[in-house]
């Protein structure tokens, strides 16, 4: 009997070795370990054995059974590995085929840039203040120290709105966001006319100029202004605030310079140039070979403007600066035609 068990084990292990497929393995399991297998017959015929033989043969048969089961498990694992490897090698994709996409939405590039600017301003304590796009001449010009017929008005060619009996106060499309300075100052001053509170606001919005529409000029464009009014605000503070802003906007290393300039509603006024980030200041087409890019205009709020806003210029001072998000994008992303912005060609919009 012992011999017969050894024989069974030997033969089963031998036939197991040549098996390469799951089906053959299943057949092997049935013929080797199934109910009618030779090994099981040994267990079935157990009763025929003598009392002395039983423990010996029993132990031997159990050992063979365990050995074959272990061999089966090893073989099964090996087969699984082979099968997996085979299927992995057969399932190789051409990963260069395009992926399945979705129709997605994006913000208009101007909105994206406005958000960048306003986010920086918000961190600096300047809160968003918005006002209307159609204005009266007094708010858009006169209160901002552009008297009627003043040559400074030549700087801002204006769209007028048809209206009668308006005298010296016609209705127009605002030429800048600065009317918001007057609206805001008056609103803040009204809360405490004797001692108006300090102001720090950001004025974003669409502005309009009478221009021909060309690659370089548009009839409408966004502007963002920063305005700070308080009791101890100086030109040196203006420089510091703008230096902070420019570093956040254009990078740590951005070099800038202040050039004296003129805006009717600020004095002293300055224009700020940042070293050309396209060529690093060496001179290129974008900076017209000057190495500098004009990025914003600024100045101390003019005494007349403070007065018109309800802030006594003998006590209060302030500064304002303004910039164009579309111009920033034109520089940043080499947009060579300003007409792209309101043209809304999806092939342009998709690039932001």
């Amino acid at each position, binding site marked *: 009997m012992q011999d017969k068990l050894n024989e069974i084990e030997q033969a089963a292990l031998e036939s197991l070795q040549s098996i390469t497929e799951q089906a053959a393995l299943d057949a092997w399991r049935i013929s080797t370990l199934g109910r009618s297998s030779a090994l099981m017959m040994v267990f079935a015929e157990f009763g025929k054995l003598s009392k002395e033989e039983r423990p010996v043969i029993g132990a031997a048969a159990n050992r063979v059974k365990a050995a074959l089961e272990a061999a089966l498990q090893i073989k099964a694992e090996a087969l699984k590995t082979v099968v997996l490897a085979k299927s992995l090698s057969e399932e190789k994709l051409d990963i260069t085929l395009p992926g399945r996409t979705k129709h997605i939405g994006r913000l208009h590039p101007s909105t994206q840039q406005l958000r960048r600017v306003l986010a920086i301003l918000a961190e600096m304590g300047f809160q*968003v203040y918005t006002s209307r796009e159609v204005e009266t001449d007094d708010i858009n010009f006169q209160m901002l120290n552009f008297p009627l017929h003043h040559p400074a008005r030549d700087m801002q060619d204006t769209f007028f709105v048809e209206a009668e009996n308006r005298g010296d106060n016609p209705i127009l499309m605002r030429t800048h966001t600065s009317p918001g300075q007057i609206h805001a100052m008056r609103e803040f001053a009204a809360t405490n006319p004797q001692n108006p509170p300090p102001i720090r606001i950001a004025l974003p919005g669409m502005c309009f100029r009478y221009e021909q529409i060309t690659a370089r000029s548009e009839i409408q464009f966004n502007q963002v202004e920063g305005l700070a009014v308080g009791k101890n605000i100086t030109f040196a503070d203006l*420089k510091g605030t703008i230096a902070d802003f420019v570093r956040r906007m254009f990078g740590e290393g951005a070099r800038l310079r202040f050039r004296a300039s003129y805006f009717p509603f600020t004095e002293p006024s300055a224009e700020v140039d940042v070293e050309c980030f396209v060529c690093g200041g060496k001179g290129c087409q974008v900076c017209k070979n000057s190495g500098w890019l004009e990025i914003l205009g600024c100045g101390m709020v003019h005494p007349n403007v403070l007065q018109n806003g309800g802030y006594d210029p003998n006590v209060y001072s302030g500064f304002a600066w303004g910039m164009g998000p579309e111009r920033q994008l034109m520089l940043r992303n080499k947009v060579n035609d300003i007409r792209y912005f309101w043209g809304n060609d999806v092939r342009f919009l998709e690039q932001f």
Partner: protein
Amino acid sequence: MTLRGEKGEIMKIPISWLKDFIDLDGLSIEDIARKLTLAGMEVDEILYAGLAMPIYKDGEKHEFKTNGIAWDREKIVVAEIREVKAHPNADRLTLLDLFDGQQDQVVLTGAPNIFDLKGTGKLAKPIKVAYAKEGSVLYDGHADGLQLMTLKRAKIRGVDSYSMVCSEKELGISTESDGIIILDDAAPVGMPLADYIGDAVLDISILPNMARNASVVGIARELSALTGRELQKPTIKFKTSGDSVEDLVSIQITNAELNPRFVAGLIRNVEIKPSAYHIQRRLKHAGQRPINNIVDATNYAMIELGQPLHAFDYDVLKERAGKKKIKISTRVASDGEKLTTLDGAERTLTPMNVLVCDEKGSLSIAGVMGGTESEVTEKTKNVLLEGAAWNFINIRRTAKQHNLPSEASFRFSRGVHPAVAETGVKRGLQYMAEWANGNIAPGLVDEYPLKPKDPTIIVTPQDVKRLLGIELTAKKIAELLTRLEFKCVVDKNTVKAKTPPHRMDIAEGVVGLADVLEEVARSYGYDNIPVTTMADALPPQVGNPIHEWEEHLRDLLVALGVQEVVTYRMTSVEKESRITQYTEYVRIANPIAPEKNVLRRSLTASVLSVLEKNIRLGESLALFEIGPIFEPVKNNLPNEPRKLAITMSGLRDATAWDVKESATLDFFDMKGRIELLLSGLRLTGVTYTSTESTPHLHPGKSAEITVNGQVLGVFGELHPSAKEKYELGASPVLVAEFDLALLRKSAPTYGIIPVPEFPPVYEDIAIIVDESVLATAVESLIKQTGGRSVSSVRLFDVYRDEKIGAGKKSLAYSLTYQAEKTMTDSDAATIRNKIVKRLENEFSAKLRS
């Protein structure tokens, strides 16, 4: 405060001219340009016409836009032509015998302006010319535009040619020329041309408040302040003879506000001829066309000092006065009065225009343009020279009215100080005497009824500290201002600064203080002012909930796959009328084009135009815009309500190489996005009502969106007849428009619903109802009956079939049962039976098994 269109006018200043008034030795042209730029006189471009140009090594920083050429000092020199000979083989060419200071040369030329001298033998007086040797780099005189070339040896019609006499174009002095340059007789033969007339021209933007610097002396004065070098003011000295001008001419000013000063001088026996070459060259560099020595003298003095001058033919005036004393007066024009100006145009005048007149009538439009009758001609012998001061606003309006921009009106419309009138007239007379051999009459007629205030401003170190943030002593403040010719008196801690009599931009009081502080800052140098952090208290922070809410709305729309667009506010009634019926619009009085003559009233029309433009560019488009529309209010400011418009058209899903089919977007795609948008805004109690009152929408496929009885917006499929008016594809076009104020006000603050702790039971039920029963009615009855136990009801199928029966439909719902404990199947069954029962009662619904 933008950077667009804010440049002042460009003033062209030759460096050589500046050097008449300030020593610039040791400063490069770039140094000069940089100093001016930082002080507010921005140099846009430097044109080199002879002087050495900076050569940038690779990687070196440029500073200015530059143009032009430098003249090689070895190769381009002053030479003299001694004889003009015929060319043996070409009629139109000549051969020049020329001496270049070292040796004789034979030079071939086709220049027309010496052609007449051909064959006249040795010239009695040699002609001085600009001579370029082989290898010189010049502009090609025959090419279109400015093209550089190197002068090479060649044979032209059998004659060896290796050098040339140059025209202005070839040397980059002007962009065109019709002959060679003929230099003044005094030109030193052999001298490098660059040393003799080499120059560089600065294009300087003159800001509106810097009219005083629209002159060579003005710029020199600024450079004097910026460098500390002395300004060498023009020395005006001349002899006079004959009768005094006061005996011959009188002046009467009728309105001093409009004409604060009028000065006139007289010069007799002028010889009219072209000006000397060095004068012509400077005028050309400054952008002026040389005419003759008298006209040139007025222009030259104007560019130098900033005072426009006007020359009258004295004999014409004398004739008009019947040989008696000439009585000049200035007055406003009568309405409809006519005057023919120098440009030959007959001008019809209005009482806004100021005229210079004599007893017979008008002579010129003051400060803008002279009349033809009294202008200086080739025959003029005696000249009456006017230098006046005018009201700058009046001149600006007059120049605009008659569309007559000129060098004179540009300066007058920015404000020229009356003090300069006298200096200007004297300078003009001096040049006329020098250049035209005239005899200046003694004296001037000078009416000066309104002197400017030239305010005195009190500045203290405290003011400087408070507004500029720098500590300066009174003495230092005075020093900075004195450089700009303010007359300063320091008294302890105050500076009394009197405005110099050449500028009109300093006001009085607190504004004057700001004006003067700007000058302190400029003189001190903006770069020298420190960079500080605001010490002032941070104001109370005020949020802008409307702005923040709109940004949130934008984010939701983007997340829903909708692309933002921004369109023009200006449009046309025709464009909008494709979907609207408005006739009242906010109209632009001066539109740039007929298709942009009103402000938009429909944001839907705006987004549809963008859809139309892009429709062929993608298989699917979904666009939105957020912004104002403009509702007209007669003769007043319009209302600017803010709107949201959405449009979609095309395929529902993106196709791919293995996904070839997709349904087209329809009503329910738009509705689904709106539902998601409104739930993103946390709107509850939203109802959708079928509407037929929106003409641009399909009557059967449109809905109004209502919350608490308030219509927030409308959406649907574009009406086929509206769609026809656009070039859109075959797919349906969906549009939606919301009023943002109403939408925002409907959005509640909300608390979240806790996520249930116990597992729910899901169940689907399908019922058969009449076609007329609305899905929303069934849904609300289910919700009402289920109460809190039914946490969600979702319609997942609508089915029609013969088996169900005609006029019937099957609605299938997914229900979620939820309780504060574990919901069992039998709990759910109880609720379901209740629901089915009510559906049977209310809608005669039948449960499908």
